[in-house]
């Protein structure tokens, strides 16, 4: 039985680099700056989206605040041909996969249920039913095996999701077929109001050993550690070594969604404590200390963030609903005659209002 390692950490909250021979990572200055840029930009996007929701431009927004390193690190561990299966909160992963933020915004604006192309971006659509996508990821990985492809699959889930039977089934399938899938659990300490203790009294990473594959626990606010651990797991998957379960230990700094009121179930000082482990600040300190980032670079990234936010704002506000008749169009590849008839009736009904001049 494999033992679960302690929390893997390569960068302390104070920005000090920790050496860990089993989780080595060697990134160029460019790569490090790239990670920093992504962290800042996804946070900026997230802040903008929250503001847009408050202003009534989105129906809902689930902030990733605090989880930037977990998502950006995991996203960067993916190779172009890999496929990731997100929940509803993986905006950071979407960003790294090159999904246009406006496609994510359109979902939360209520315009569509996901406007990007998974085949093109390597990111499946957001999945809201917890954790249905973990089975999809596992099945997809079984397809990869049948194709003989060198592709790995990354399934995202939350700490709350670990209680759903479907996740256990996904883990059992992955183990039984040695499928090239990595389960990436962002333990952000809460499932809406339920603290992690309600779902498990032992670290979630322990779960994997009981299903017969390795579990790893990583500091989810340390982008380097997340990248190293996830890259290693995906490589193992690609090489036929089967699944890994990663618990990224992090914290949801914001509300569950913009509809939520976290003051009802958690104390301010807990949030304060986690603020000191901020994922962006620690990387910035490190880059500054190593002379990798100077004031110009930092300012440029900030500016880029403002531009991005402005673009997202403009784009979101401009988004119009799709014509209602489209609700009939993609239900089936081959539209059945009764539905076609219903569609025609719908159009006739709508037209009757136009005629009536209402």
């Amino acid at each position, binding site marked *: 039985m494999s033992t679960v390692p302690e929390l893997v950490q390569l960068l302390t909250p104070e920005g000090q680099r920790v050496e860990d021979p089993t989780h080595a990572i060697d990134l160029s200055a460019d790569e490090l700056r790239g990670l920093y840029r992504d962290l800042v930009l996804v946070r900026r996007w997230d802040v903008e989206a929250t503001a847009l929701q408050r202003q009534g431009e989105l129906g809902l927004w689930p902030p990733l605040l605090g989880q930037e390193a977990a998502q950006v690190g995991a996203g960067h561990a993916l190779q172009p041909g890999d496929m990731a299966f997100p929940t509803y909160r993986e905006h950071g992963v979407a960003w790294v996969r090159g999904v246009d933020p406006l496609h994510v915004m359109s979902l939360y604006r209520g315009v*569509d249920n996901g406007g990007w192309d998974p085949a093109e971006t390597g990111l499946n659509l957001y999945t809201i039913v917890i954790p249905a996508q973990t089975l999809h990821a596992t099945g997809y990985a079984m397809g990869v095996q049948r194709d003989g492809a060198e592709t790995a699959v990354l399934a995202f889930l939350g700490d709350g999701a670990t209680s759903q039977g479907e996740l256990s089934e996904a883990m059992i399938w992955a183990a039984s077929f040695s499928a090239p899938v990595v389960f990436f659990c962002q333990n952000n300490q809460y499932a809406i109001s339920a603290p992690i203790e309600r779902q498990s009294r032992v670290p979630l990473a322990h779960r994997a050993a009981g299903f017969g594959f390795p579990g790893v626990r990583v500091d989810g606010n340390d982008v380097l550690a997340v990248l190293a651990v996830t890259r290693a797991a995906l490589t193992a998957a690609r090489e036929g070594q089967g699944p890994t379960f990663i618990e990224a230990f992090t914290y949801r700094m914001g509300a569950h969604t913009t509809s939520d009121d976290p003051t009802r179930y958690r104390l301010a000082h807990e949030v304060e404590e986690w603020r000191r482990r901020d994922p962006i600040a620690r990387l910035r300190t490190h880059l500054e200390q190593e002379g990798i980032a100077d004031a110009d670079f930092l300012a440029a990234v900030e500016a880029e963030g403002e531009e991005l936010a402005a673009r997202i704002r403009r784009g979101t506000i401009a988004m119009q609903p799709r014509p209602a008749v489209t609700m009939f169009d993609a*239900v089936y590849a081959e539209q059945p005659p009764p539905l076609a008839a219903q569609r025609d009736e719908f159009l006739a009904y709508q037209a009757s209002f136009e005629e009536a001049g209402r």
Partner: protein
Amino acid sequence: MTTETLTMGKALNLGLRRAMDDDPKVVLMGEDIGRLGGVFRVTDGLQKDFGEARVVDTPLAEAGIVGTAVGLALRGYRPVCEIQFDGFVFPAVNQIVTQVAKISARSQGRMRMPVVIRIPFGGGIGAVEHHSESPEAYFAHTPGLKVVSVSNPVDAYWGIQQAIAAPDPVVFLEPKRRYWEKAEVDLDAIPEPLFRSRVVRRGDDVTVLAYGPMVATALQAAAAAAEEGRSLEVVDLRTLSPLDLDPVVDSVRRTGRCVVVHEAQVSHGLGAEIAARLTEQCFHSLEAPVLRAGGYDVPYPPARNEEEYLPDLDRVLDAVDRAMGF
């Protein structure tokens, strides 16, 4: 007489509170119902007053909620499960259909299942996918379950208590978009029985049946129709399984025309069964087929299209027109 002006959400909250006061075996279970008071705050304050053993914040799994509720019921408790949103009841369908519904029959009545499954259901709140479903037909088609929906604070207050007191399993559908609507509730009244439908507006030309969120819509349609000199009788079905069609049959025999309204996709929805039964029972009185105004046979659309999906006043009136035109 103690009357209070209550929203439906608050009426449910008070009803739950009273049920818990009345019977120490009542236990509430669900995701986020304790500390948070539920995402719609229907259980607000109850954990504080009744403790964590009676208002149980569960792990995140609907089969687990309903499956453990079965066990609690077998031990003599009366569990009230909250499913956070309609679209998340499906992981629990196995427990509901193969266990909750069948245990009484399986045991020849030795074991009963006084379990209530509360589901905020339906659309109209601009939500993301899976938060606007109307799954009632799945449950109404399942023998062994009872299924009710409430349309107003009074029925909500009494209905939840009656459902909890009932010896049979009840799927209790709460029209989430009406949670904030208010009415005077007489807390000392003698309530109407739970498994009965009710005529809520008298009329002569067409009988309009609705339940849950659509009752208000049907009443709006009736008011609009009245202005054009057309008289609609509106029935709040209240109980979806068993159906209580006797008052409807009386009505339809008089009006000769009937329209059933619901949010759920129309095909194989409640309207189908109601149309089939009414046609059987009122065949010679019907001057038009029973018509349906419901959701289209498509997955619930994105929020910004839901207005066109959901039956509204105009859709009801359109169906009424068609019924009159036969």
